[in-house]
């Protein structure tokens, strides 16, 4: 595939591997950052349309330069470190949010060959990385030395820990169906002669819903954005942040959204596989599915009011965890019969 790079490879010798890896990382991170920027524009546009408005359209044609203008604004703003804060932790917290959000991309396959690290325990790795993201939020809330930030971080920590269990069980059913922790193998397990009907969304539909909703909760998106809760605790854990430090939280949140969208399409919607048998499999399908899931995220935000905190906890512990536990047993039993066709 990469034959034309061979002369460069020979020139660099042993330095080739690290350099090539860094190049590959850049090739994932740079488009991701661009996608994050334009996801913010898409969000404002879509929510605008659903509220019969037209959304940003002043900066550039169709508002296309709006993300750049926002980025520039945040770059130029001063980063204010509150005098009562814990300086070191205050500065490190936004990095701790962004770092796991980017690290998780290492094992995400874009098509059958295009993957940075084809790790065997890819799914576990993703679970571990997404569970690390909560530290940035907790540290930000604690280090700010502000009551609102602290309330926001406590809410966020409790919420993420509760929904991670349901999310984990949803993933358990997927890996039972695929019999592999490797994300590439999970997609290949959904390959078949019937296109869409071979995807795991058919047998695991309840888990798809549980995973999608838990994903919304994990990324602190509306209607589960009690950690930010603009109308009750101002902006929650990042109330004291400004400028680029605030932008990093933003980048982390949107990168996580895109990650959840990718995982949903890999595990339930057949990744890069084509929905109909007569069209070829391609990365275009993957991006289309991701765009659809992201659109769902925006649609949720435009439609639903914020959950009250006790309702949110009830949903996580009393609805999702029992439902996902039952479905794990159902899938296990189903797989022992001859009616398991996937």
């Amino acid at each position, binding site marked *: 595939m990469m034959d034309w790079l061979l002369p460069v490879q020979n020139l660099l010798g042993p330095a080739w591997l690290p350099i090539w890896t860094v190049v590959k990382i850049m090739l994932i991170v740079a488009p991701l950052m661009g996608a994050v920027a334009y996801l913010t524009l898409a969000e404002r546009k*879509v929510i605008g*349309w*659903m*509220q*019969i*408005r*037209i959304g940003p*359209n002043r900066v550039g044609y169709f508002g296309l330069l709006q993300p750049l203008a926002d980025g520039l604004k945040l770059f130029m703003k001063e980063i204010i470190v509150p005098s009562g804060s814990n300086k070191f932790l205050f500065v490190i917290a936004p990095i701790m949010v962004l770092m796991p959000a980017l690290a998780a991309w290492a094992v995400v396959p874009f098509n059958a060959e295009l993957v940075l690290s084809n790790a065997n325990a890819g799914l576990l790795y993703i679970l571990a990385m997404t569970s690390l993201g909560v530290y940035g939020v907790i540290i930000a809330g604690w280090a700010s030395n502000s009551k609102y930030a602290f309330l926001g971080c406590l809410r966020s920590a409790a919420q993420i820990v509760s929904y991670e269990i349901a999310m984990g069980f949803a993933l358990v059913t997927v890996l039972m169906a695929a019999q592999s922790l490797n994300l590439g193998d999970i997609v290949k397990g959904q390959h078949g002669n019937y296109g869409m009907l071979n995807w795991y969304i058919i047998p695991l539909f309840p888990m798809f*819903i549980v995973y999608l909703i838990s994903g919304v909760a994990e990324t602190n998106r509306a209607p589960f954005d009690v950690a930010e809760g603009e109308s009750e605790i101002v902006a929650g854990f990042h109330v004291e942040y400004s400028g680029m430090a605030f932008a990093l939280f933003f980048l982390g949140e949107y990168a996580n959204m895109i990650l959840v969208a990718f995982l949903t399409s890999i595990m339930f919607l057949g990744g890069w596989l084509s929905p109909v048998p007569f069209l070829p499999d391609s990365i275009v399908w993957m991006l289309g599915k991701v765009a659809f899931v992201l659109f769902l995220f925006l*649609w*949720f935000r*435009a*439609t*639903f009011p914020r959950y009250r905190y006790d309702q949110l906890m009830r949903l996580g512990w009393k609805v999702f965890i029992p439902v996902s536990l039952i479905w794990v047993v159902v899938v296990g039993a189903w797989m022992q019969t001859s009616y398991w066709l996937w």
Partner: protein
Amino acid sequence: MEKIKDFFKTFLLIELLKGMALTGRYMFARKITVQFPDEKTPQSFRFRGLHAQRRYENGEERCIGCKLCEAVCPAMAIKIAVAEREDGTRRTTQYDIDLTKCIFCGFCEESCPVDAIVETRVFEYHGEKRGDLYYTKPMLLAVGDKHEAQIAKDRLADSKYR
């Protein structure tokens, strides 16, 4: 039976889907955004915008310094000082409106016996300092002079309802 129906209704997220169908429909509805500097919504002739002091046709200022507006102003934004002019008429020496206090209720306009203080249709004005929004008598008279034609037309249109 009812209970079972309720259970499935909540469990299958029927109501949430209904809500999403509604917002989904609205996504394709005609947008009602008014692109402000390019497009403007129609204004009523009773629009209450920036204040102005009016004059008679002969150039004489209308205000007689009765202080009714000062008394009625709920935000206490108006300040008036009165003295006798050389020709023996009662006139104001000071007529200030603090637009940062004003709530644009229109009571001053209602209370004025000679239609001197009015609120115009102007709403796109700004000040770069706090003091810029403290309008004194010459400033109010200047606003009145500038928009007199429109002001007179609006008063005429409103007169049949009074």
